[in-house]
Each structure stands twice: as C-alpha cells, then as structure tokens.
C-alpha cells in the first residue's frame, strides 16, 4: 500500500535520480566513472512549544537533501546539496569527475557487490507512516496536557522548553549496482523540562516520548506527571560516600550502559583498534545470561526497516548471546576493513533489546546492604580502547536491600569496562517494544565492583 504522499514524492524524485545517474555514467565515462549512488530526501517539520497554557513558539519548515557518490574503479568521492536543481547537481558532479583521479584508492569503500543487493521487501506491514496525521491543534493540546499534569505535582516550580514536534520524512536511494530503496516515516516527539524547587535549591528533570503514530505516544498527563515526580524525587540530593559498592541501573541508565557495550563492538572502533573487544568474536565478553539482539522488523518500531541503505536485507541480529560476542556492528565498509560479513545495519542498529533475566528487580536489589540505584549518567569518559569508565550519575540510595527516598547526585561511577561487563546481573523487566522512549530496551541491571567517588 502506497499513500498519495509517497506516490507524489516518488513521482518527483525518481526522474531526478535517473537523470543524475545517467549523467554520472555518460559524462563520467571519459573520467573513468564506473558507478554512482544517489540519495534524495525530504523532511517536513513542525514544532510547537507551550508555556503556561499559551503557545510560545512555532517553527515550520521543509528541507530537501541530495547526496551523490561517484566511483571510478577503486576511487570514490561524494557531496551533498539541498536542492533538486539537476543543472547545479550535474555541475558539481562534473567538478568531482575532473579530480576523482587524485583520490587515493580504497576498495573497502566501493558499493555493495551487485549480487548481494537485495530487492527491498515491502515495508507497509511495519506501519511507519501515518496517513491521517493530527493537525497543529492536536499537537498543542498534547503539550498543554503534559504541562498541566507536570505543574500539578507538588514541589514543581515551573516547566520549560515543553515542545511537541512532527516530522514527515521520505528518502529514496538508487545506485548503479541495482540498489533501489524508499522509506517514508512520520515521527512525533514530545519533550519537556520540569523545574522543581525546595528550600535547598532547584532541580531540573526531563522526559520525552517518541513514536511513528501519534496515538502511540505516551499519554501526555502520564508523561508530565512522571517527569515531575522524577524531578521532585531528586530534590535535596546528597553526595554519597566514596567507596566500592554495587550499582543498579534503571531502564534509562541501563540503555546508556548497553549503549557503551554497542560502542565497544562497533566496526569502526575495531578497525581503529579503539576497543578491547577487537578479535574477541566467539569469546565470553559479558556475564553469562546477557543476550543483546537487534530486530528491525518490529511493527511501528522507532528503528524499523527492511533494507539498509547499502542494499542489504535487514534481519534480526544477535550481537551478544549468553555473554558471548557473536557479531560486530559493522557497515559494509567496516566489515571489509575488519574481515567480517556485513550484517545489514549500514544505518546503525534498529530496535535493540537485552533479553530479561530471571530475578525480579526487588530480588536483584535484595542482597545489597549499601548501593546506588542509578537513574541516569551525565557525560564523563568512556574509553573502549582501555576500558576506562568514569561518569557522573544521579539516583537514589539503596540501603539494606531496598531503594530509599534519599536522592544522591554529584558522584562519579568509576570502573573498568572489562571488569564491569563481566559483573552484570539482569532483572526480568525488559520494557516492551515498540517503545516510545528507548531505542535499546534493557531490564534493571546490577553491576558489582564499581567505585563511587563522592564525599
């Protein structure tokens, strides 16, 4: 099923792409051009902000983009412009053709081999494009409900930067190796900051929701209340004592931690020798029980798709299975650089998930005499080359097996990733997918052996 908007887009851009590819090969022949790839995209954006019930800001706009890569044997170069003007695009192509012989060869950068290019499987079952879109009034109404619910919570001083946005984006890619790909997505995002105040000072918190269908967004009143309650809970926070103690990560902090795991198995990091997991495929790199998978075929999933932009069909991938490293997250170029097979993730991971463990979160925490329940990290250093982990965090104190109401902040979680990865225990509460908040869903996660630097 193709919507009218999709048909209109394709009718407009397909001839442009064809003109550009034809020009690349015909005119480029004299300059040794052997292949070309064209990507055309458009996004229509709309954003509204609300302040004390009134609309404070509206931003609307449309942006086009065209990206072209030329290949001459083992040489390649690219450029992008935000215009569909084929005369201008061909002029720049010509300029690049004239100098492409100066570019050093790198066969790893070539297009995917023709035989490996898949035909794009139908995407309609993934349901990433909402045809009947809400108007601005509905977006504003969402923001107002979010704000009202947040402001109603005791201890909240005000809300700020409360915004709801809609983006309608389409992309078309065609290349001389047979690649043809089209994606259309609607994406709604809402976010807001809550400022809570007590005698001791102010504290800011933040929450957000994102979905391909407006109706899938977290209920605005629920989101506003949750944002406010989390912020109020962090008021009057204290610095914990310095020492070694277990940490327990909530879903948001766990997403960040497993994001670090993904950085450590990134193809580019392996190529550059920037990860201690280089050469560890098939080895136990995390605690037993840890399985990390990525599924691109989840209906309405934030990262879902059927064909990556290199032309590989996207299928579920297991990165870590029971703690054993199964695959690196490598693009086509990176896969060639490090000598593995590409996995159909040219554009990054899609909907990642850490499978649930067996204990309930309460059971996971029960044995901890003194520890910290971490709700988020702020910056810091994570170095996957040498394993350094040193990040500021905030959350609640754990005492005698229970999460207390004592908020803690201004401390640093230090450890070495090599050790941390092997000290992971998982609860059974992995959030469901599609998820309106997490691109990577992970259960409540306990890590032992970290140093807390506080008072």
């Amino acid at each position, binding site marked *: 099923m193709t919507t009218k908007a999709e048909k209109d887009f394709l009718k407009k851009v397909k001839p442009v792409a064809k003109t550009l590819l034809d020009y690349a090969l015909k005119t480029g022949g004299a300059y040794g051009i052997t292949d070309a790839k064209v990507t055309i995209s458009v996004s229509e954006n709309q954003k509204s902000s609300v302040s004390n019930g009134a*609309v404070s*800001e509206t*931003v609307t706009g449309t942006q086009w983009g065209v990206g072209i890569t030329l290949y001459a044997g083992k040489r390649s*170069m690219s450029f992008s412009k*935000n215009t569909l003007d084929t005369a201008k695009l061909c002029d720049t192509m010509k300029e*690049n053709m004239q100098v492409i012989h100066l570019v050093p060869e790198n066969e790893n950068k070539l297009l995917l081999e023709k035989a490996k290019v898949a035909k794009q499987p139908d995407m309609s079952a993934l349901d990433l494009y909402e045809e009947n879109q809400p108007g601005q009034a509905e977006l504003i109404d969402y923001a107002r409900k979010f704000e009202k619910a947040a402001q109603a919570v005791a201890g909240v001083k005000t809300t700020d930067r409360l915004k709801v946005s809609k983006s309608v984006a389409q992309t078309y890619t065609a290349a001389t190796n047979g690649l043809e790909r089209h994606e259309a997505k609607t994406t709604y995002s809402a976010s807001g900051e809550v400022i809570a105040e007590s005698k001791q000072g102010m504290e800011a918190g933040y929450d957000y929701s994102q979905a391909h269908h407006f109706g899938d967004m977290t209920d605005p009143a629920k989101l506003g209340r949750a944002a406010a309650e989390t912020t109020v809970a962090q008021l009057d926070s204290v610095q914990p004592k310095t020492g070694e103690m277990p940490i327990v990560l909530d879903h948001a902090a766990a997403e960040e931690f497993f994001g670090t795991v993904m950085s450590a198995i990134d193809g580019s990091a392996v190529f550059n*020798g920037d990860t201690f997991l280089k050469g560890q495929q098939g080895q136990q790199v995390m605690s037993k029980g840890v399985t990390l998978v990525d599924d691109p075929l989840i209906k309405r999933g934030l990262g879902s798709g059927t064909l990556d932009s290199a032309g590989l069909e996207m299928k579920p991938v297991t990165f870590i299975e029971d703690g054993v490293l199964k695959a690196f997250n490598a693009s086509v170029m990176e896969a060639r650089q490090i000598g593995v097979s590409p996995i159909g993730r040219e554009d990054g991971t899609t909907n990642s998930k850490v499978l649930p463990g067996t204990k309930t979160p309460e059971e996971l925490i029960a044995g901890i005499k003194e520890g910290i329940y971490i709700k988020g990290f702020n*910056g810091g250093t994570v170095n996957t080359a040498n394993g350094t982990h040193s990040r500021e965090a905030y959350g609640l104190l754990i005492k005698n097996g229970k999460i207390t109401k004592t908020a803690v902040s201004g401390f640093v979680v230090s450890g070495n990733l090599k050790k941390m990865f092997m000290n992971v225990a998982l609860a059974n509460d992995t959030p469901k997918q599609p998820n309106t908040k997490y691109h990577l869903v992970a259960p409540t996660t306990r890590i032992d052996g970290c140093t807390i630097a506080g008072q």
Partner: protein
Amino acid sequence: MSAKNSPTDKFYEGSDLTPEKTVKTVKEGLRGADFGEFYQEKAVSESISKQNGQYTSIAVGNSSEGFGFRTGKGEQVGYSYADEFNEKALKKAIHEAREILDNGGLKPKKDDDPVGPTMEKSDELPAFGKVDKKLFSEQATLGGMTLAEKISSIDALETYTKGLDPSVTNVSISYSSTVKDVHIITQDGQELVESRPMTSLSIQVQVTDKDGNVETARTLIGGHIDCKEAFNEAACKEAAKEALEIAKTLLIAEEAPAGVMDVVLNPGWSAVLLHEAIGHGLEGDFNRKGTSVYSGKIGQKIAGDEVTVIDAGDMPGERGSLHFDDEGTRTQENVLIKDGVLQGYMQDRQNAKLMGVKSTGNGRRQSYAHLPMPRMTNTYFAPGKHKPEDIIASVKDGLYVTNMGGGQVDITSGKFNMNATLAYRIRNGKLCEPVKGAAITGDGATVIKNITMVGNDLKLEKAAGVCGKNGQSVPVGCGQPTILVKKMTVGGAGK
C-alpha cells in the same frame, strides 16, 4: 545602493526576488511585531578523513542554502524556513511565522508602523559587513589549495606522525572546512552580509605499549581560518607532537584519585569548565524565566574578588567572533562578572526586551532552520595578578589539569561534570606524577566562589569549542589564565 556588484547579489542569484522587494516584504511581514528578522545563508563545505591508513571519506562540493523568517511579540515567537528562496516561499514563510501571533491579536492594522512601535531600533551597522574592525578574513575560500595538495598534506602529516615514535599504532586525520555567507534583513530594513569561514584539522594519535595498553589523544587546529592556514606544515607537526606527547603520558599515567581536593586549571581550553559551569547560567533566556542559579542576582557578589568574566563577540581572530550576531545586532564586549559581582546576562532581542535591557549581541543560531537564542561567543576569565608557578606552589595536595575534555551542565541546579583527560598530582607545591580519567563535578555557584587565585597568563582556545544547547550547535571560543579552585570533587578509579 548600486545595482552592480552589490555584496547581496549572490543571495538573490536565481531568485525572482530583488533586494528592494524583499526588504519591503520583510518589513510588512513584521508589522506589529516586537522583534523579528529575515535570515538567509549560503554555505559551502568539504571534508576529508583518513583513518588507520585509509581514506574513509572525501566529500567535496557540498552546499546548503536557505532562509528563515521570524516574528515575535512578548513571549511568543513564530518561525518558518525553507531551502528555496523565492517570492512564493518567502510569503509562505511569513504567513506561517505570523500565524501564531495573528491568533494572539497581532493582525496588522493599516496604520501600524512598519517598525512596530515597541520595536528596538537596530544598531547603526555599516551595511554589507564593512565594519571598522575586521575580526577575521571574509575573503576565505575552500579553493586556497587543490584537492591534490590537501591529500598530499594529509599523507605527509600521517607519515611524519607515524615516524615520531615506534609506539604509534594508528593515526587518524580529519579535515573539514566551511564558508557560510550570512544575509540578514533587520526589523528596520537594514541588509547585512558577512562571510564566515570555519576550518578544523584534527590529528588523532593512538599509541600502544609492550603490554598492549592503548591510549589515544587528539589535537586540533582550527577557527575562523581557511585550509591554507590549517595545513600550515609547522603548525601541523607541532600539533602531532603534542598529541603524541599526551598519548604517551596517558600510557604511564595512573588512574586519577577520588576525593575532594584543590584543582589548578591550566590556561586556555580548561575554560570549558567556565563555559559549562558558569557561562550557560548567565544566558538571558534562563534568567528571564528564573530557572538559572544566577537569576535575580545582578549586583550581588557571586564570586571571589579576583574573578572577572567577560563574553566578547568582537575579538579579532577568535573562534566565537562575529561582526554581528544572527539577529543583526553588532557584537560587543560584555562584562558579566566584575571583581566577583554579577553585572548582567547575555541577551538576544527577545529576552532583552522581556527583561527591559538591550540585546548584547548574543543572539545566535545553528542555521537557517533554527531559531536564534542567547548563546556565548568568546567567554573568558580576565587575567589576574598571580604568576602561574606561584599558584601551583600554593597547593599542598591537589591536581593540575592540563587536558580538559568536554562537559555538561544542569543550568537549574548549576551542577556540572567535566572530564580531565590528563592531569598531574600536586604535592607540597610541586608537580608530580600524571593521572588520567579524572571526572570533576560540582556546582557552578560554589566553584566560582572557590576560585581563590587567578593567573596573569590568559590564553584563548581557537580550535576546539563547539557548544550545544537545545539541539543547536555553534562554534564558541573560551579562555582563561591559570586558576586555582579550592575543594573540587574529583572522581577517578585510583587511590
């Protein structure tokens, strides 16, 4: 205005609009508004990246252009942008940007002054960027060197860096350059143009010791310069040697200790701490809304006697300098804190108006697809009277930070965290062993009170600063002399 070779010509190329018509349409579009402007840009850029011996990306001939129209009244702002510039698109943008305000009662009346009665008149800026003081060259182009020359410079720098030391296991070099031409029509119909070059050359060196331990360090050359300056051979070699030196020191450095201690920050880029911990809290929007720790404190003593903080967008050659900001206001020197007393905030037009002050020339935006907001330009601690060696000598047990990484701040609570990639222990006034991975946390309001000594060796960083706020990035400069901050929380994995 002469019709021949006007500096605005390139902005109207291929468009059905003329300067006269555009100015008239924009002024009409701003009827009844408190503030607003037309902003247009045309940017060209290129980048080359070589990693681990392979050219992984060569992008040449990129361009991006577009415009945006903004109108605002009180707390309300409407903005609309498009990438194609013609009469139809401009009228559509004006219509969409006005919609929010028209609903709120901004419908233009016939007798409305084209410049709203409450509108602040624009500064008398000499048109077309012909300012009296040149902050950087507006003649820079991407074409100062051929592609072949750029590639051979990168190859030579890579060979040189690899040859510096047998412990070097990987060298990555990334070059990127852009020239952004900006065209603004202010609320009272002035047309301003400026050409803003920005180039960056990054040299990353990875070293590995005999036990397989890996460390990486990166140095940058950059700022409002073109490729020729960035590829200056002597400067490149210097940067490579510096990166190698840092990486090798990291190999022998111990993990930073954890605890509360006195911290000496070296001159230059360490001021990213000032930027995060104090600068953001002095931006007008947070203070207008009362959500900054510094809200309502003008005239109060908020810092030690030796502390003077300045944000100046008009410093020649500095990274955050602009002849005028992205709302068409002339940039200037703004003293934010003088001898410890808070003087004022950094303002754009909207927040200035709402707070009853004048814009300070700090209204900046990432691109035509973004709204301007109060942003820093070049922010620095003014030099004090102490010699740097005296500052170090005064510390009994502490840290001397030589390489600060990035950081984050929560403006509301003032809490920040910074990462000191490399530092040295100070014991009994002497620099001792190197330590790595020190996370420094605290809150800006306390830190600035705990600055007890300010050195006489002010240095500004030209290459590294990129500031993110509300999803928008802009280049910024920052700087400081050597300073001593008492009692900071340092987090590291060491003893």
